[in-house]
């Protein structure tokens, strides 16, 4: 036993390692290198175009084969942000997005609650049919819708564009809140009713606050869907209602690269900011829970 005992001095001089220090084998090194290469390639593939976009937004003169622009400038930012038409399209985008989100919420949230709490015939079929908007090529849907809107005189009107943009929000605004509502234990609602709260008070003070995160995600995703909607708005909104994505078509075809680059960044900022806000919920599984079929 005495052979195992180490004196205090020796213990201080030989610190113990927290891990074993075996040398790495060849296969481990190779695997490590390959994964680094793959990750690097992915990063370049995803971030590369974004970096180039940023470079273009501040570039003055940039010709092949230079890796970086020869001269830099802010002038394109000035041009874009001070341009009346473009400014107008930015404003319109930010008017349509909240309107579409609110209308979508008003229509879809009650439906989401019904899907979550009640049992009625054809329930599942109904929920799945909402996906139909995503199943068909959007252009086809829009052309048919345009025909209908034309009949009702809604082409080139504010509400016509709202209707078209609503299409993209329906799935998100029904499925995700429905999962959020269903996740609220029924007992909590029963307890509220037992305490004297009617249906509306129960919904407002118990169900809604507890489903808040799912609904926030749905609201933000709808907002973004409306901001990004290009084809339908282009079809229905021209020529009076030009939103940012529609404006983008003109910019890309009739203006130099720099203008389009600046505009792309301006268009991406709200999406980026909102997604940052929502990332906690997306990572937390709200999205996954929302798209599970019950």
């Amino acid at each position, binding site marked *: 036993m005495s052979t195992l005992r180490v004196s205090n001095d020796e213990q201080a001089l030989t610190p113990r390692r927290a891990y074993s220090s075996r040398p790495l084998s060849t296969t481990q090194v190779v695997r490590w290198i390959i994964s680094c290469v793959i990750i690097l390639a992915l990063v370049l593939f995803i971030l590369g175009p974004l970096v180039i976009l940023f470079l273009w937004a501040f570039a003055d003169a940039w010709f092949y084969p230079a890796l970086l622009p020869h001269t830099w400038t802010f002038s394109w930012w000035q041009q874009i942000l001070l341009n009346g038409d473009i400014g107008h399209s930015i404003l319109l985008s930010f008017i349509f997005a909240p309107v579409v989100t609110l209308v979508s919420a008003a229509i879809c949230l009650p439906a989401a609650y019904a899907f979550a709490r009640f049992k009625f015939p054809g329930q599942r079929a109904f929920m799945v049919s909402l996906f139909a908007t995503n199943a068909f090529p959007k252009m086809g849907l829009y052309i048919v819708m345009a025909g209908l809107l034309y009949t009702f005189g809604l082409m080139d009107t504010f509400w016509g564009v709202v209707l078209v943009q609503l299409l993209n929000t329906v799935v998100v605004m029904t499925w995700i809140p429905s999962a959020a509502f269903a996740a609220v234990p029924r*007992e909590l609602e*029963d*307890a509220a*009713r*037992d*305490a*004297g709260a009617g249906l509306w008070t129960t919904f407002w*003070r118990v169900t809604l606050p*507890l489903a808040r995160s799912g609904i926030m995600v749905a609201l933000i995703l709808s907002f973004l869907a409306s901001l990004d909607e290009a084809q339908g708005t282009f079809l229905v909104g021209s020529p009076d209602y030009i939103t940012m994505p529609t404006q983008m078509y003109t910019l890309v075809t009739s203006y130099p690269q720099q203008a389009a680059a600046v505009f792309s960044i301006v268009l991406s900022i709200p999406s980026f900011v909102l997604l940052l806000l929502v990332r906690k919920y997306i990572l937390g599984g709200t999205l996954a829970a929302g798209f599970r079929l019950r």
Partner: protein
Amino acid sequence: MAKLVLEGIVKHLGGRPVVNDLHLDVKSGEMICLLGASGCGKTTTLRMIGGFLAPDAGRMLLDDVSILHLPPEKRPTAMVFQQYALWPHMDVFHNVAFGLQVRRVAKQEIRRRVQEVLKLVRLEQFARSYPAQMSGGQQQRVALARALVLEPKLLLLDEPLSNLDSKLRIQVREEIQEIQRRVGITAIFVTHDQEEALSISDRVAVLSEGKLEQYATPDVLYRDPATLYVASFIGTMNLLRGSVQGQGVAIEGTVVPCAQFPAPIDGTLDIAVRPEDVRIVDDGGVPAHVIQRIPRGHYQELVLSAQPGNIRAFVSNDIRVGEQVQFLFQRALLYRDEKLVRAGVAVS
């Protein structure tokens, strides 16, 4: 406080009758229990009283007034749910105050009443805590406070102790009983645990498959179970089959000496004997040998193997496994067609 009367309550769920022609009366200030195995209809009945389910038929009268047409928010009942159902996004104060706020009671009044009821359940210092920060027993008390603050006529408890560990269960059930007695409120609670039911209820209603088997005080339920179901459900019971023969009961060809029955009964009967009524004697009994001995603290449970079958007995003296003993029955309950026909008189 209020009295409740259920008459002819029927409820079908999924095609089968979950509650079948139930008649029940609860006296004012009484605490009664609905006891039974899962699926017997006890929770369904409680939910019908609370207003969450509507019966298919029958009458429900609270203080002689029908309450069937009232939705849960309008009924003068308050329920303590099995999983407590405390609202996680509100603190204890607001959980308890919710009902009062909905009724638009004045702020000062709300504060006073909430403090009062929190004092009753001994949770005054937790007013600002959130349910997630509290233990099961404490959450249970908040749920109770929330129900009581509304001064309901009827308190309903849905398996209030099933989520607690056994030691806590005993403590909390006694607290519930104490609070119920102090406030004097009429209460109905549901459980599948017969020990719980017998220890704190004034009366117990044993339910099986939607029908009321027996509704009596715990003592009567234990001593004179009216049906074979109740006999086997409450406590431990030896269940045998045989007939009355002279001074005993004949089971599997052996006559076990038993109490004298005032008048002889014919036919084959179900015979139920409590283990404490199986007496070990020095002679004059049926031979058996001990095959199992389970220590139970201040007494022992023995399993005897004898001609009539395996018999459980409670004894207080030390008897080893493998010993040969003789036994007889001090008291036996006789059942024909599941109904009690004769309760034996104990013989000294």
